[in-house]
């Protein structure tokens, strides 16, 4: 286990631009944008259907107005928690690129710069190397991004609290801790479920990285495009693209949410759907879905292939 931890640490170190610097910078930027927009235009924001009765519009007034109705009181925590996700949303934009390009370079770069010969002089089995190179971008990186996003949300909440405090508004409304906490926590199982759906595609990129002697990007993308094109031209169907779409989408419509009424009317219903969704049902639905399992079998085959390629790599 010590060895595997060292491998993960090495992977993070190798990709620290994507794994650490990028999310830190993006989280920082999202905080900065919130601060700047609050200072510059925040005070003049006008909201539809919200009259301020001639009073100067402010964040505090906005909160107070929102709390005036019963509906508003019920919706407020969800609205606030959701806004934090939106305001800190910038922190996430790089994640898909980080995951894709980390996987694509993982087994390719070490052959290109010959360091594979150094790694292989260590008593580390090839399968552990390959699994570490899969787990780091697919599991560890999103958790780091989540950490940064949480930090950004907290700083934003802190900043807005100070603003509201000075305005004499209902500062505690900015801390719907239960909602915030459940949002962060439920990201983890939801993401992991998604990654299992996406695993055949992620494992494909890993396999390409173990195989391509050059131009891994083209190797990853062109065969996919070719299969889709051939299918489209000769069969005039789009099954392959649908298959890819289902796996990228985490099988959402295929299985996970198929039984749910996805038609939230209010922020609270929407938030409940996300954080309070019957996760157990969703997991069961995925596990009962044939396409889910076929995808995992394909993924296992591709990871196995990548390990075999790694054994032969010099």
């Amino acid at each position: 286990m010590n060895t595997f931890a060292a491998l993960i640490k090495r992977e993070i170190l190798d990709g620290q631009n994507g794994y650490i610097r990028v999310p830190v910078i993006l989280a920082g930027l999202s905080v900065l944008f919130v601060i700047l927009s609050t200072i510059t235009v925040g005070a003049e924001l006008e909201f539809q259907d919200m009259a301020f009765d001639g009073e100067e519009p402010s964040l505090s007034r906005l909160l107070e107005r929102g709390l005036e109705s019963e509906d508003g009181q019920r919706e407020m925590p969800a609205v606030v928690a959701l806004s934090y996700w939106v305001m800190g949303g910038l922190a996430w934009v790089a994640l898909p690129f980080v995951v894709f390009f980390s996987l694509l370079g993982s087994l390719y770069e070490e052959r290109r710069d010959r360091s594979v010969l150094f790694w292989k002089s260590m008593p580390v089995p090839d399968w552990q190397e390959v699994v570490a190179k899969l787990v780091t971008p697919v599991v560890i990186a999103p958790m780091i991004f989540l950490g940064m996003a949480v930090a950004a949300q907290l700083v934003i909440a802190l900043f807005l609290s100070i603003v509201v405090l000075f305005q004499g508004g209902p500062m505690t409304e900015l801390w719907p801790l239960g909602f915030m906490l459940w949002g962060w926590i439920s990201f983890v199982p939801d993401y992991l479920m998604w990654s299992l759906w996406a695993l055949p595609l992620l494992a494909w990129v890993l396999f390409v990285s173990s195989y391509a002697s050059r131009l891994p990007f083209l190797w990853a993308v062109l065969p996919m495009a070719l299969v889709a094109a051939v299918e489209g031209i000769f069969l005039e169907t789009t099954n392959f693209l649908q298959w890819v779409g289902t796996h990228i989408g985490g099988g959402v419509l295929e299985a996970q949410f198929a039984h749910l009424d996805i038609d939230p009317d209010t922020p609270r219903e929407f938030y409940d759907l996300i954080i309070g969704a019957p996760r157990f049902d969703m997991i069961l639905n995925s596990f009962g879905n044939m396409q889910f399992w076929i995808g995992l079998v394909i993924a296992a085959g591709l990871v196995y292939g990548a390990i075999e390629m790694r054994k032969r790599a010099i």
Partner: protein
Amino acid sequence: MTDNVIEAKGLSKRYGDFVALKSVDFNVPLGRIVGVVGPNGSGKTTMLNAVLGLSSYDGGLTVMGHDPSTERDALMQDVCFIADVATLPKWMKVVEVFDYVEAVHPRFDRAKAMDFLSRTNVPLDRKVRALSKGMTVQVHLAVVMSIDAKLLVLDEPTLGLDIIFRKQFYQSLLEEYFDEERTVIITTHQVEEVEHILSDVMFIRDGEIVLQAEMDDLTSQFTEVMVAPGNEEEAMKLGPIAKGTSFGKSTCVYKNIDRDTLAKLGETRRLGLADIFVATMTGEGA
């Protein structure tokens, strides 16, 4: 129970139609320093890659009791190698290289590695990318010499380094690393620099082991004679395996001919490994 570190029987490797290694047999015992000498493309690296579990092969091969093709990771507990110059990860800092090796290799002695490095000018917090070629090799050597392995394989370890460093390197290899419990295999083009530390030598040509011998035996077999004027005809009769001229005198190289007999022809001297290699590869000495 033999003390062989490597036992190869019918070891072969082919790449498509090209046979890089033609069913070679050899054993390498414990406590030796073996020089593997051969021209480029002769199969040296192919052979070492098989021994190190870096590539597949046909035939029987046991290294430290392991089958390298399936047990590379277990093998690397006891075997260390530098397969090429500049294989250290360029994005790592020197200290991070040590951290990593310390975490994954149970036989790595960090204090020893730090001690090696303290005698150099290599800064610990510098990235490998920013080190000179010589410094990179020093870091890599500090790592492998601090791993308590039974077999160390060095494939052209000092390629592209200056002569002072090369001398120092072989010096410390001999004095601080090597003992009768370890075996070292070295391939190099600069035969002159290693011949004084080798205990055994192996010549490879076209995927075949042309010669495998202990250094002492080998060097006593070959004698070069500066043939004194008038003795040329007699010299030719003894069947030299190579002929040449130096300083206006003709020289002849003999294999397995009594030194006293040769002394009558002219001044004799032992042949260096490089000359033995050339004579073996070009003449009928094999």
